[in-house]
């Protein structure tokens, strides 16, 4: 039976449908951020008018966020924690991946499974035990408490991504380095590491984003405003009275903390795609 529509027509319709779907997804994902930007530019009663465009755009909210609380300090905290978590995760991840992906030893598979298993516990299940641990280590209300606890969820996926990538690197490359007289450390740093850059960028960025956005641990393990990271600080922004929620400030703060992530993703996006698909197909 011949279809009612000719092939070119069907193709054109298909393309229209594709772009409609694309537009729908785009609006769904970008609108919340757009709304935050628009709201952050509004002041006073304009905040409560559902306009898609601010009538009188103003940066007053941005100024207020930084003036009314130690928001710069919060951003610095977030940056310190996220960067430290990223660097530590990458360092431990790469060295672990070298062992797990490259060396034959007893218990390699169980180790991989335990690493994966650790990341399966819901955060809330770990919370009270981890709280005791952090108290006992004397890290309560310090950034180290956050760094330590974030590694619990960043390390498993860094190790897995890097191990998968490491396995794809040809074994002969490593053997060539061994014949050339390289120690395992030199093989890792001078031969493997430069080739791992895409996977490192992907894993590092994911770790950074996870640490930057984390809320529950940050809320639980810090007490004072000058130790808080950005997500908690934003959630705890309060107005002049208990009945006022300062939407303008909250939105301005949200926009400020989202920007670094967008910049990072734009810089590394090519490498992320390369890194994420690297382990997927056998070469």
């Amino acid at each position, binding site marked *: 039976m011949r279809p009612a529509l000719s092939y070119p027509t069907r193709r054109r319709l298909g393309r229209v449908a594709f772009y409609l779907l694309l537009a729908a997804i785009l609006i769904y994902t970008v609108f919340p951020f757009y709304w935050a930007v628009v709201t952050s530019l509004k002041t006073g009663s304009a905040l409560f008018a559902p306009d898609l465009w601010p009538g009188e755009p103003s940066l007053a909210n941005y100024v207020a966020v930084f003036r009314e609380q130690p928001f710069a300090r919060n951003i610095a905290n977030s940056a310190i924690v996220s960067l430290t978590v990223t660097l530590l995760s990458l360092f431990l991840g790469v060295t672990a991946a070298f062992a797990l992906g490259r060396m034959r030893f007893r218990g390699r598979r169980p180790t991989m499974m335990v690493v994966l298993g650790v990341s399966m516990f819901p955060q809330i299940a770990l919370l009270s035990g981890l709280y005791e641990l952090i108290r006992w280590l004397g890290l309560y209300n310090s950034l180290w408490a956050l760094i330590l606890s974030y590694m619990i969820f960043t390390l498993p996926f860094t190790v897995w991504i890097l191990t998968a990538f490491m396995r794809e690197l040809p074994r*002969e*490359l490593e*053997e*060539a*380095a*061994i*014949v*050339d007289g390289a120690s395992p450390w030199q093989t890792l740093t001078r031969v493997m590491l*430069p*080739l791992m850059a895409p996977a490192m960028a992907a894993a590092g960025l994911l770790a950074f984003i996870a640490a930057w956005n984390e809320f529950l641990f940050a809320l639980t393990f810090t007490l004072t405003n000058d130790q808080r990271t950005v997500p908690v600080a934003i959630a705890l922004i309060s107005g002049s009275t208990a009945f006022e929620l300062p939407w303008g400030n909250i939105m301005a703060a949200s926009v400020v903390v989202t920007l670094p992530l967008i910049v990072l993703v734009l810089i590394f996006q090519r490498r992320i795609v390369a890194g994420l698909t690297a382990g997927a197909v056998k070469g």
Partner: protein
Amino acid sequence: MATLALRSVRKAFGQEEVVKGIDLEAADGEFLVFVGPSGCGKSTLLRLIAGLEDPTDGDVEIGGARVNDLAPSERGIAMVFQSYALYPHMTVFDNMAFGLKLSGTDRSSLTARVQDAARILRIDHLLGRRPRELSGGQRQRVAIGRAIVREPAVFLFDEPLSNLDAALRVDMRLELARLHERLGATMVYVTHDQVEAMTLADRIAVINAGRLEQAGRPLDLYRSPANRFVAGFIGSPRMNFVGASISSVNDGHAAAAMAAGSTVNLPIAQAVTLGSPATLGIRPEHLTLGDEGDLLFAGQVRMVERLGAASLVHLTLSSGEDLVVQQAGDTRVRAGDQATAACRIGDCHLFNADGQRISDRDPA
């Protein structure tokens, strides 16, 4: 420059023994080729010499000293890998200099050695490039160059030409022969290609299923294969094998009666029982079409392959066995014709039921 020796070397991976006790020596400056079908253990053997694998049993000696407990870089070897294994992020110069840098060679002698090696291999104009900007043949040269700068006592090559196209392979083969002549180093070369083995080797070691079948000079292996495996592996096209049984034994001679009818009487070097099954081997190039010869085979032409310089005529004998005849130039026979092939008695090999050669080769 050094000698190399394997003493009852064994290697097992788990339960599976891949190298089953090999004794072999290479003289100083010798070009030794390991040849065998894939999975026969020849690459494992090379890796045992390199130190990339540890033998389960037995010793590896280089320059007369046991090297089992030395790291690959301390053994005075250099290895050229099948995939070249060039460091993708380094320039050609850095690829070649990497080993020297690690060993702390001073900058000026390092540069001199890399440039010398590059000149020998005619890649001195490529030193600033990265591997991905090179052709297959150039990458191969860089891999060899990386071995040369280490000034090793023993060069190890693991199927180095198998990734190149046919024309380039012939060029590189000549180049390797030239290089061996120039450097005078001991070289061990693994290949499954018997043409490479025949042309490059001072001595060939034929390996099968983890055992050494025979070691010797290329033409000795061609003329006097120790067993059916070596006979079939060395020489192209492959040696023909025709079933037979020993019909009489006397006075250092044995007569083998073939299923196809005729009987051949050959001098033998080993005892053989009357009536036991045997195999007669004749190389295609020793057979000619026509009836001028000591031994005749009649059959029907199944197929003719015309290669230009030679033609391969496939006969089916009355016993149902196949026989390939290599004729120089073109041939007039066509599929379906009846034809007769002939050979000299002196070109026949006789193998016993275990595949060992029992016919004595007339030196004349």
